[in-house]
């Protein structure tokens, strides 16, 4: 019995070896590590096209999401088991990955000049560019159900006070005012991080001073306001907010069970567009309101970046693929495979071609009026590793805004020390 099993296993093993050997001789196979929370249609169709036109086959390794994906990437980089491509955040999350040692320097590639400057800033360390934009830019803002707003005669709030008033009316009428999806704990941060436009408008050098350790959230009133807003939301969540996931959140927003969902648009709109194509235009977007009705601006999240492994065996093939992806033809393939265009592309002079939605028009209004700013994590390298838990603690009412701000400052200090910044 044992002997038979051994023979079968060794035969299978040899077959697999032969199979993979013959596959390698026909075309180059590259691996791409990507979180399963990312929208896949676009990149999948580019990879399929690349297989036909360039002879480069890309195997997707779908991985966990949130902090678990963070952990997975850091561990694999540290242990040397690095895939050819990694799709990962840009901005503050890039610094701890040792990009100079691990990723290909793309600054001199032919497409580098066409990449939007704000993205270039967040995907570069020491002036060297390491990534191309993965997909569309998105915003961290309040997505709302237009039909629910119409039903209760509400208008888009221009100040935080008006927003809370809207929430009160909704709550009184039995509608979940704010949808919470804290089982995916990273989503609890969006309100806090998305308030960045308001913070940076009030204190223009906050990001620079914060990075140096001279300004703190607890001591800067405009920054503390972000935590106070988070604390204000505690009474408005759905009853199962601690067990709900992003998918649940999308369902609740579309059905009208919940009116507001403060989240990153790219994790919500494409999902709604593919599951509820006839209801996608019921969803609108407005920026997280500040206290000044005249200055409403939206906080932009740079897209994730596609990083290439510098020390792999296929760096030429990697560069070839990225070249194709960033060409007008490649970008068209990407955008046409998306269900909807839910934001701009971080490539200057390129307009994504595809199905436009109501939410996109809402977002573009902010861009046209120049009322947009990149989120703080794309302007400084310091973002506390426990941000999600601290936000979740504050939003669920376990800590006050002041306590949460202090805890977050401490958490940032811990990360700053590990990054080698001298914080007091």
């Amino acid at each position, binding site marked *: 019995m044992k002997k038979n099993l051994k023979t079968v296993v060794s035969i299978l093993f040899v077959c697999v070896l032969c199979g993979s050997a013959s596959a390698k001789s026909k075309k180059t196979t590259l691996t791409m590590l990507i979180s399963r929370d990312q929208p896949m249609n676009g990149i999948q169709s580019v990879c399929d096209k690349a297989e036909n036109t360039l002879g480069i086959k890309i195997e997707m390794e779908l991985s966990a999401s949130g902090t678990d994906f963070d952990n997975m990437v*850091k561990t694999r980089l540290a242990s040397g088991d690095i895939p050819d491509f990694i799709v990962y955040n840009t901005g503050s999350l890039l610094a701890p990955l040792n990009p100079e040692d691990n990723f290909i320097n793309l600054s001199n590639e032919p497409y580098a000049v066409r990449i939007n400057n704000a993205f270039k800033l967040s995907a570069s360390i020491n002036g060297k560019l390491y990534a191309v934009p993965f997909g569309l830019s998105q915003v961290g803002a309040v997505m709302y159900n237009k039909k629910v707003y119409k039903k209760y005669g509400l208008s888009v709030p221009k100040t935080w006070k008006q927003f809370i008033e809207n929430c009160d009316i909704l709550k009184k009428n039995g509608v979940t005012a704010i949808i919470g999806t804290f089982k995916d704990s990273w989503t609890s941060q969006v309100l806090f991080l998305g308030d960045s436009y308001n913070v940076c408008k009030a204190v223009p050098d906050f990001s620079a001073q914060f990075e140096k350790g001279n300004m703190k959230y607890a001591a800067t009133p405009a920054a503390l306001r972000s935590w106070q807003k988070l604390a204000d939301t505690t009474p408005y969540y759905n009853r*199962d*907010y601690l*067990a709900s996931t992003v998918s649940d959140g999308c369902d609740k927003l579309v059905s009208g069970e919940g009116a507001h969902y403060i989240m990153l648009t790219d994790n919500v709109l494409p999902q709604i567009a593919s599951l509820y194509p006839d209801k996608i235009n019921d969803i609108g977007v407005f920026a997280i309101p500040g206290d000044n009705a005249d200055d409403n601006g939206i906080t932009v999240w740079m897209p994730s970046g596609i990083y290439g492994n510098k020390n792999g065996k296929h760096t030429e093939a990697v560069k070839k693929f990225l070249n194709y992806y960033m060409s007008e033809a490649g970008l068209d393939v990407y955008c046409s495979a998306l269900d909807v265009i839910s934001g701009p592309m971080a490539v200057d002079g390129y307009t994504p071609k595809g199905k436009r939605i109501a939410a996109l028009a809402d977002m573009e209004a902010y861009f046209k009026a120049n009322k947009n700013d990149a989120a703080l994590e794309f302007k400084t390298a310091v973002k506390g*590793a426990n941000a999600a838990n601290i936000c*979740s*603690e504050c939003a669920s009412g*376990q800590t006050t805004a002041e306590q949460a701000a202090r805890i977050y400052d401490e958490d940032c200090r811990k990360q700053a020390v590990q990054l080698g910044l001298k914080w007091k």
Partner: protein
Amino acid sequence: MKKNAVYSIWFAVPALVVFSIFFVIPMLISFFFSLTVWNLKSFTFCGFDNFRLFFTEHSMNLSVRNTFVYAAVTCSAKLILSFFIAILLSGSLKTKNILRSIVFFPTLVSTIAVGITFSALMHPSKGLFNILLQSLGIAPVDWLGNTKLALLSVAFTDVWKGVGVATVIFLAGIQSISRDYYEAAVIDGANYMQQIYFITLPLSKPARNSIIILALIGGLKSFDLIWTMTGGGPGFATDVLASVIYKQYAAGFYGLSTAGNVIMFIFITVIVLPLQQYLIKKEEQ
């Protein structure tokens, strides 16, 4: 005589080599790296900064308290439940063997699978537990979202999973008690409860001590079930030492998390070693 001693030491050498390579040397290396800021490729020496940083961690007090509570609750629950189940299964029950398999089965299942399943069962609106409660007219309970209840819910799942091993150990211990004692007791007119209290309980002490030590260490180290079910949340409410360390490791702070591991090692040793001495002494009495 001396030649005999040297000769027998050689038999222990392979085991000692394996033990040193996989346990002692990594332990010493980790003591070293706990004093550095480390990113696996290079390190800068920073003395006891990591330890200081670890102790000022926001959730530190809470996580130490949670670790204690979790270990105490799971250990005592496993001990008491397994004792009674073992007595039941060592009697003369026709379905004894099948029941033993059923009791032991949860231990064989992957902890992650158990965690995911019980999280789904404990979902506040869609979970089976709450649906059952609602059908009985009781208000639904937020098992994993209520900060006071979450840790106990996870502890409950841990006990469900771990009671099998403890039962097996107790079974072995109980069955090794000679029948003569029971016969003598019956002759002296002892009833069933008295037999258990005066014979089974004291004579199963070795088994009981093993279970206490194993369950306590397991409870103090516990990580995977808590992480799967709550991720240390909501907020930091179910954080234990191991999950605090894991979060720092996940953030890439390798020196800091190594320091945390050293602290946990000392913490567990300080609790378990004296306990073990105490239990062995009582056993010998």
